[in-house]
């Protein structure tokens, strides 16, 4: 049925631009990283200990967990969903890795097995969302609650066991002057970014998230990218749980809780649309680093943790206001003429 469809009586100026487009992803990525760098540099003025290379190294280490988790969350948000179960998946990954460490088999079997279990739970989330038409908010919330209880019961309240050596090495070790985590983060970011932005799989994610019906018409079997996104998200969370366990050499039952909201916040601050179909992992990484830097700087300054939270919220609202699609479009049009 027709609706107000303006016809192109006059050739619109948009098609006669000479330059290509400036991507909104580039703008937000640049903005986020600029902000993070400014924050680090500015903190130098407050105290010389801040802003040093060691500090940056610490920040990247602290941000590593959030970066891994935010990738998975970002994929789910990209296809138009939301994953509230990652807190529990982080816990699950850590708990299984420590509890089964030594009794399950060699580490190179244990670790993939744990990741596979997490991925299967993520796939179950997708089953509920796609075929049972349960809203992602509820489905992932419910599975999160179930997994958390399962972990609680399984460990009888007290997780036992030590971290697998691989993760101890990852989180504490170093290759020469560079910490192993830093190398890992760089490799992970590159691979993750490539998966999202430079593969056929990634293209399908964007299409499904932008318009599921159009993707279907264009011949995409839409359930596959969606299920993959939820499975990867759960696996990433599980992996982050194992990283945390390596960092602290032990698991606790609520260790994933403090990563749920920041994972969503990183994605939002990075300019991805909460409705899906738009965004870039590079900007999300910037968001994760920004949030972590904020936390470090604030505690180093001796300020109340409460202020950190207030500023976090303000940054989210600010990013939403500034990175609106219509504002960016105006910026693009103006710079391209």
């Amino acid at each position, binding site marked *: 049925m027709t609706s107000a469809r303006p016809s192109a009586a006059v050739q619109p100026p948009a098609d006669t631009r000479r330059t290509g487009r400036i991507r909104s992803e580039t703008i937000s990525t640049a903005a986020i990283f600029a902000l993070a760098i400014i924050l680090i540099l500015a903190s130098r003025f407050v105290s010389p200990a801040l802003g040093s290379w060691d500090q940056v190294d610490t920040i990247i280490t602290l941000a590593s967990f959030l970066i891994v988790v935010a990738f998975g969350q970002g994929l789910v948000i990209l296809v138009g969903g939301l994953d509230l179960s990652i807190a529990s998946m982080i816990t699950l990954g850590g708990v299984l890795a420590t509890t089964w460490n030594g009794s399950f088999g060699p580490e190179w079997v244990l670790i993939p097995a744990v990741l596979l279990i997490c991925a299967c739970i993520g796939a179950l989330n997708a089953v509920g969302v796609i075929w049972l038409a349960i809203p992602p908010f509820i489905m992932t*919330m419910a599975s999160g609650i179930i997994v958390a209880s399962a972990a609680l019961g399984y460990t009888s309240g007290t997780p036992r066991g030590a971290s697998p050596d691989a993760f101890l090495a990852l989180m504490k070790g170093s290759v020469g002057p560079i910490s192993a985590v830093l190398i890992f983060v760089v490799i992970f970011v590159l691979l993750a970014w490539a998966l999202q932005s430079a593969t056929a799989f990634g293209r399908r994610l964007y299409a499904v998230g932008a318009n599921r019906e159009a993707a279907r018409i264009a011949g995409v079997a839409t359930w596959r990218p969606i299920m993959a996104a939820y499975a990867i998200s759960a696996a990433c969370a599980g992996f982050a749980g194992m990283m945390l366990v390596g960092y602290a050499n032990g698991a606790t039952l609520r260790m994933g809780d403090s990563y749920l909201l920041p994972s969503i916040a990183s994605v939002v601050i990075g300019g991805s649309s909460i409705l899906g179909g738009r965004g870039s992992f590079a900007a999300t990484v910037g968001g994760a680093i920004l949030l972590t830097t904020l936390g470090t700087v604030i505690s180093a300054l001796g300020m109340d943790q409460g202020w950190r939270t207030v500023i976090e919220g303000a940054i989210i609202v600010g990013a939403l206001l500034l990175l609106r699609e219509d504002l960016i479009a105006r910026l693009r049009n103006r710079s391209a003429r």
Partner: protein
Amino acid sequence: MSANADAAAASAPGSNLSLAFRRGLTDGAGVVAILYVILFTLYALWDRSALTVSGVTNLSNNAAPLAIAAAGESLVVISKGFDLSVAGVVSLSNVLMASYPVEGPGGALVSLLICLGVGGAIGVVNGVLVAILRLQSIAATLGTMIMGQGLALVIMDAPGGTVADWVSYTLTDVLFGVMPISGLIVLAVVGLWLLFRHTDACTGLFAVGADETAASLSGISVVSARFTAFVGAGLLYGLAGFMLSVQTATGNPTAGTPFLMLTFAAVALGGVSLTGGRGSLVGAIIGAATLMLLQKVLFSGGVSSFYTGIFQGVVMVLAIVFGSLVSRLAATGARA
């Protein structure tokens, strides 16, 4: 097929009653009410004290904060939005009440006004961001929730403080020896809702939630409707924070955190459609009561906390699947 043949069935006698019944069912409140009755029966069988005045009062005090918060949330969900700020408002209200206790009934009023003020203010901010500036509600309220939560942490960085005695003794008590006051307050909220149901603003809320374009073409102000939803919700969150403080009698800067998920669970359980346009505050309130009762049932049944969460999660998913099935069947039945 002329106009004469149109919907002859709908004008059949008695259709009004069956329509009302079906609407009650499709509004979802029916399903969860049945669930509650079943649960309560189980609970009463297990624990006879459930049927005493103090037992009922206990249940009422326990469920009231979540029930009121879910009531507020359902306003936003009906208008097709998500409001995460409930956690922030509840934490902030609780912390203010515990840090600045004011004694006596007058003090209770002052504290209540402060809580309502906080909730209303955050509701206004949400309204501006979502209704006027057209940000996505889930993202914008994530921001305001985190800010509210942060303010709560600034005011009180660790659990502590004491709520005024008068409030925590009196408002958890009973009236005339039978009626728990917390229950009366929840009923008052229900009463306000039943009044609100008969206003143009409420019709606007439902219309905007179902089809924003059609509502706007019918002369309804979409901005107004959404703004009202957020402010109303904020006020109710403030009240919920007040009732929580009354019950716990102490302050906790992260008191609101569990509300984040439980509120949505209660709303969904109560048959309020997460896609907007359908549902009732009453359903959300019963949903909240059911969730809290479920916890109690499992606890008193000696079920380890291992199973509690699993049960809650499974119940939630099943209730939603069942509820949407029922409403879909009833809707096609109404068409016949």
